[in-house]
């Protein structure tokens, strides 16, 4: 029996076990919306802006091992989705975005609500399709899901013209996909994995550097086993937080621009670095020139060959699925009982513990003004470290990364690569729908929250009881911080001098609003908010408007050239001591 393209599409999504479609209707997708109305296999979530639909689908994907799906109409619906798609692309999030398109006879005629979505989205997708014939629709959807979820994951766009949704064909969903030009690797090269094991055996100052790839590749258990087996210091990138437990003593904190003193120093002076699903991003290693100046051996494990040796020279590249590669590596290490020299490792830990002592994340607590760091610490305590945390982009994002200890993967959801303000709230919605029984908190700022604040309405409609933690400092905090550091404290347009009353705003949308102004009220307020299991609570914390994120590494500087927090600036810090007894060195 022949059914319409729109019905085929709905059937395909059901075949893929899609649970939610995040979207917004419009002329070009009305046929699809009608088909959605007539089925009950999956639910549709009506957002208030297409960008939010894509962020919600993205966070749905990040916070589970499932795949997010978004549906938008042609033209402005499609272009509104682009920021969300680019966000997912930069962080390699598997996602399928279906966009409506004007009818095929009208394509290219500058028709009403027409935009070349395949062209617009090309630079920010893993792949995209324009379906010109209803007969190709089912196979295209199958391919899209396959491409989005395999290899290095990423967003895939399917652009579907209106007449294709109306045309009819027999529904035949392919069982499997074979694309001759697309065969992502899985197994790492055994010879290379052996070489990595040998390097670990010879290492005097080994360091394990774990990125978002370990989370996407569901390799957290293997990462943890490897680190503990070797007793080696471990760092996570911003995207990798949770891949190794943040409360564990072998964890030296996040590294990079706002990483801890000990993590950055360890990275700088390690002689052997094992990079796992991490790409030596500029926010992590800062300047390649300074970074590579130390004598070190680098092993890089990544599913994407183009991520390997893109910014720094790599001695042992291993292309493959991180989970598989780590399993193989662990097996070799166990079998041959390979461990780094204990004597050297002890000296290395002594060195790292010396770097740890000054506690680079210490800050001066205050009785009058709420310090943003304090809110994060209390949030960690009140939620027992169990909440799923989404964040927007700015100082609050870095405070969260520094002070909330993420102990499991898929718990920390933020826009790391693209740095998209407005991500946090729709992401919290998506994460809450994927994890209905979890505490979900959105950490945001007065700047970020206003970029997609209309989603408070969606949260009302779908009863997503997220807890919004607004670190309100009346500034675009990170912009202000940079203006202090680099632009002579000229606060050009970083002051937000017309903030709404966030409490009333939350109430206007039917939620609970709270404003917290005193440090003593932080913890009770958080407890009260998280006790309201059924309600969205918007917590407006008036925080220290002058708080800055430390440590910080300025562009072009080395990892050992951090701007340190005030309390460390006059301290006698332990330098890297090459003459510690690491054994025969370098």
């Amino acid at each position: 029996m022949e059914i319409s393209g729109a019905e085929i599409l709905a059937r395909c999504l059901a075949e893929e076990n899609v649970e939610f479609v995040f979207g917004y209707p419009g002329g070009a997708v009305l046929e699809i919306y009608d088909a959605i109305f007539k089925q009950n296999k999956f639910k549709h979530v009506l957002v208030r802006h297409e960008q939010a639909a894509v962020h919600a689908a993205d966070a749905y994907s990040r916070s589970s091992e499932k795949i997010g799906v978004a549906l938008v109409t042609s033209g402005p619906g499609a272009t509104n989705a682009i920021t969300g798609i680019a966000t997912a692309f930069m962080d390699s999030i598997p996602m399928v975005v279906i966009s409506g398109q004007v009818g095929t006879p009208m394509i290219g005629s500058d028709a009403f609500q027409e935009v070349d979505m395949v062209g617009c989205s090309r630079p920010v997708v893993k792949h995209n399709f324009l379906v010109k014939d209803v007969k190709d629709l089912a196979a295209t959807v199958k391919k899209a899901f396959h491409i989005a979820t395999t290899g290095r994951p990423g967003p895939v766009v399917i652009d579907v013209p209106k007449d294709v949704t109306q045309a009819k064909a027999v529904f035949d969903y392919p069982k499997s996909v074979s694309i001759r030009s697309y065969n992502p690797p899985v197994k790492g090269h055994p010879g290379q994995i052996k070489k990595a094991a040998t390097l670990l055996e010879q290492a005097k100052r080994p360091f394990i550097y774990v990125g978002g790839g370990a989370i996407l590749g569901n390799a957290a258990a293997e990462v943890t086993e490897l680190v503990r087996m070797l007793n080696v210091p471990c760092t996570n990138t911003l995207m990798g937080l949770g891949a190794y437990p943040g409360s564990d003593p072998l964890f030296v904190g996040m590294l990079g621009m706002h990483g801890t003193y000990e993590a950055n120093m360890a990275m700088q002076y390690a002689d052997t670095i094992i990079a796992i699903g991490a790409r030596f991003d500029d926010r992590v290693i800062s300047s390649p020139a300074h970074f590579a100046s130390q004598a070190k051996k680098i092993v890089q494990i990544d599913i994407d060959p183009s991520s390997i040796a893109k910014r720094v020279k790599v001695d042992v590249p291993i292309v493959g699925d991180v989970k598989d590669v780590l399993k193989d590596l662990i097996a070799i290490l166990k079998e041959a009982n390979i461990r780094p020299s204990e004597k050297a490792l002890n000296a290395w830990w002594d060195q790292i513990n010396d770097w740890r002592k000054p506690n680079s994340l210490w800050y001066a607590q205050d009785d009058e003004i709420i310090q943003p760091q304090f809110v994060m610490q209390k949030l960690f305590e009140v939620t027992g470290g169990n909440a799923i945390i989404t964040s927007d982009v700015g100082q609050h994002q870095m405070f969260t990364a520094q002070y909330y200890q993420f102990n499991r993967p898929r718990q920390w959801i933020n826009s790391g690569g693209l740095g998209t303000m407005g991500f946090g709230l729709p992401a919290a919605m998506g994460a809450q729908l994927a994890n209905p029984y979890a505490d979900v908190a959105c950490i945001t700022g007065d700047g970020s929250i206003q970029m997609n604040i209309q989603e408070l309405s969606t949260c009302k409609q779908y009863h997503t009881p997220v807890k919004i933690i607004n670190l309100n400092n009346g500034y675009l905090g990170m912009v202000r911080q940079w203006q202090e550091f680099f632009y002579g404290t000229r606060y050009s347009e970083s002051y937000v001098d017309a903030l709404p009353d966030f409490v009333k705003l939350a109430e206007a949308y039917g939620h609970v609003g709270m404003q917290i102004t005193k440090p003593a009220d932080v913890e009770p307020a958080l407890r009260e908010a998280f006790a309201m299991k059924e309600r969205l609570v918007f917590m407006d914390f008036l925080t220290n408007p002058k708080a800055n994120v430390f440590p910080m590494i300025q562009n072009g500087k080395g990892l050992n050239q951090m701007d340190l927090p005030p309390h460390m600036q006059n301290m006698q810090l332990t330098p890297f001591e090459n003459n510690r007894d690491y054994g025969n060195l370098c």
Partner: protein
Amino acid sequence: MRHILSVLIENEAGALSRVTGLFSARGYNIDSLTVQTTEDPTMSRMTIVTHGSEDVIEQITKQLNKLIEVVKVIDLNEADHIERELMLIKVRATGKDRDEMKRMADIFRGRIIDVTEKSYTIELTGPGEKLDAFIKALDQAAILETVRTGASGIGRGERILKL
């Protein structure tokens, strides 16, 4: 350094723009690009002439391989190869220049493929340097129009790029 890349790619709408988009988005250079379907009509072959350091060429190759439609990429520079480019050049051919132009075309093994009272159109194939040399050898004022295809390349001997 100059490199000549051969790319086997699915013969699909939009595939070419993915390749050119990749170059422009990542700031790589395309010196020339030729493309046509192969003996297998489902597949096209591109020859891309580009330049950059070894690291840049490695990234270009890896990024090309990442495109879903790209089947295979090789760098022809890595071994012996043959390159050819086609030029059509229209030159003024009047008076005593008329014989001179014919002689020049012969010397470069060009063929005159169109003749009018005032002009010749010469077809010339060869490596890019030969075509450059031909242009240089002519009286510049006599050149009315040139069009060149960019290089096509193929490995020498047993070296074959095929699925």
